[in-house]
């Protein structure tokens, strides 16, 4: 694995490497070289299977982290390629030409996080939310509780307890 990272380092900017397990490594690259790097991994290094594309909302840093998780069926190793993109203008180069499934992942990311992939097929069609008109619901500045209370006629009289506090009171009522 280490040789592979070194080999990649000579061709592409690899910023940060996390050796998670023997068979799972995460590398971070920049937005411009990401698709090139993934194509290289697919065509020359045998990472022929795309497992998932997912995103993380780093709201404090103002960043979205995209993770392309690739699998090498021959060596049975996984490689996650992380790309940090700006949260304000969340746009990423589309990679739908690499795998057929990518277009669907990108549709989902556009719907849930509002990350736009120009040129990706059917990107603006609703994926699972029909007729959604609020902000993308997986963004962390979207308040689901407030939205649900405003929209879905909550039944009054509902109590919520913090599980830890509640169990402490129940089981040890005298001490705190």
């Amino acid at each position, binding site marked *: 694995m280490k040789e592979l990272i070194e080999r990649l380092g000579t061709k592409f900017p690899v910023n940060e490497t996390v050796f998670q397990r023997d068979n799972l490594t995460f590398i971070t690259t920049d937005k411009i070289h990401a698709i090139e790097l993934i194509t290289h991994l697919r065509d020359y290094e045998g990472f022929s299977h795309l497992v998932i594309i997912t995103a993380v909302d780093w709201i404090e840093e103002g960043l979205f982290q995209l993770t392309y998780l690739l699998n090498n069926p021959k060596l049975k190793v996984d490689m996650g390629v992380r790309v940090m993109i700006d949260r304000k203008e969340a746009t990423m180069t589309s990679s739908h030409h690499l795998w057929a499934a990518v277009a669907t992942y990108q549709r989902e990311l556009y719907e849930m996080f509002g990350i736009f992939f120009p040129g990706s097929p059917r990107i603006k069609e609703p994926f*699972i*939310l*029909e*007729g*959604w*008109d*609020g902000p993308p*619901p997986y963004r962390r500045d*979207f308040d*689901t*509780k407030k*939205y*649900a*209370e405003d*929209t*879905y*006629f*909550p*039944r009054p009289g*509902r109590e919520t307890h913090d599980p830890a506090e509640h169990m402490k009171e129940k089981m040890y009522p005298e001490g705190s």
Partner: protein
Amino acid sequence: MSLKDIEKRTVIGPMGEEIEIDPLRDYYCAATPDLKMEQRKSSIPIIEKFANWARSESLWILAFGTGCGGIELRPLVTPKYDVYRFGIQIRATPRQSNVFIISGYLSVKTLKRAIRAYEQMPSPKYLLALGSCTINGGMYWDSYNTINRLDYYLPVDVYVAGCMPRPESILAGFDSLKQLIKDGKGEGAAKYAEKFEWYKKNQKQIIKDWDMPDYNW
């Protein structure tokens, strides 16, 4: 289906003739529920009682699992619980069933289908709501995409609480539904027809892309 499919349009036929298509009129029955029909009862009490007994002893469930509870209904037809002996059977089409079980949480997307399926069932029809999610949202109460209270959108006859309820409690729910029907109180469909405007207002408030007729017959 999308909004475009139910717009009026003109189609050129094979002989060059123009055919006007109004899907709401041609493909659906555009009538609203007829309150008189929904409340129709036999004038002879004993016949109405007999009919109610027959309705209660022959509950045909629509095979439509809406949430996680869909999988919880399967044990009911296994040798251990065997609901067939209580006159409960499962049908694959809404037209032939008279019990609709909302089994667990309803996302907005599923609610749309549930409304369509419910409205297609012939009256009198009964609605059994399964799990806490249908009562107050359950563990999905603050979710952005699941409804909290089912009775704002469809008339519920019997609630079965639990997350998820065991098959035994579902059977108990069926028993109370049977008693309700025998007492002549299973009039959910009539209630729906009576407060139709209110139900539609609530439904349309959360289903933003309303792309079907108001009453799907």
